């Protein structure tokens, strides 16, 4: 099913703040099997010059996916999430996300297209603090695989 092209260029209002917790960072680091102390120990983080424990570079997806859900799960867009796989992902970091950050995300739909029977949705989430400091930008492309495709 083709997606609603009228979503291209749409920008959403800033999300509710996501508060980054130390335990959430530890949980995420454990889930990717990374035992680096900068994710767990404030003193180790301080030794690298950080005010508190920082998050792994791909932790930004935890924030950006929540923000992106506004369009991904919008029934009027028409994306079949059970057929969705991740196509591309890119992060640009202004600085590491750290415990205590209260992050808001602004979602923009960059592109919607069809290729080889697949629906392809490209979004951008600009993540910053409540105070307006830019922290990271997450660029995501999701692919809803066409029903006739076996791969």
């Amino acid at each position, binding site marked *: 099913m083709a997606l609603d092209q009228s979503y291209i260029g749409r920008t959403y209002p800033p999300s509710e703040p996501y508060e980054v917790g130390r335990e*959430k960072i530890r*949980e*995420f680091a*454990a*889930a*990717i*099997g*990374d035992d*680096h102390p*900068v*994710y767990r120990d404030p003193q180790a983080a301080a030794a*690298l*010059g*950080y005010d508190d424990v*920082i998050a*792994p*570079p*791909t932790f930004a*997806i*935890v924030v950006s*996916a*929540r923000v992106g859900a506004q369009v991904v799960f919008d029934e009027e867009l028409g994306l079949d*999430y*059970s*057929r*969705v*796989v*991740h*196509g*591309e*992902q*890119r*992060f*640009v*970091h202004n*600085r*590491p996300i750290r415990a205590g950050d209260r992050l808001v995300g602004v979602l923009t739909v960059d592109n919607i297209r069809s290729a080889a029977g697949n629906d392809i949705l490209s979004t951008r989430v600009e993540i910053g603090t409540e105070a307006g400091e830019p922290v990271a930008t997450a*660029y995501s492309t999701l692919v809803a*695989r066409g*029903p006739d*495709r*076996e*791969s």
Partner: protein
Amino acid sequence: MPAIVNYDDVQVGTELSPASFPVRRVDLVRYAGASGDFNVIHWNQRVARAVGLPDVIAHGMLTMAEVGRVITDWTGDPGSVVEYGVRFIKPVVVPDDDAGATIEVTAVVGAKLDDRRVRVDLIASSAGEKVLAMARAVVQLA
């Protein structure tokens, strides 16, 4: 943001230490919980097959995170990753056994950039096939 690797000690072609990462079903469950990505294809074989996948597949973001560890283990400072992007070209298929899948990663410095930054080019494979394309990071060195 001090990094342990000095820009002046790095050349185009400098290889980072390769690594391999196991990905078992339990790792997918743990990642689902930690990340909040509960897409059924990452934990339910019946649904994965019904939508045309060979079996349960790993979260692309878990693969991306593991591959990125080659960089953060190299610099010693995860905050050194300024930019990191990948294209997912093949799923990492995770069988329901104790071994699971394995992701093999190699990485090389592809370019020296301004501001004491380098571009690192990454190659990731599972079951003998490349799973990522255009896997690149911009890394701040000391």
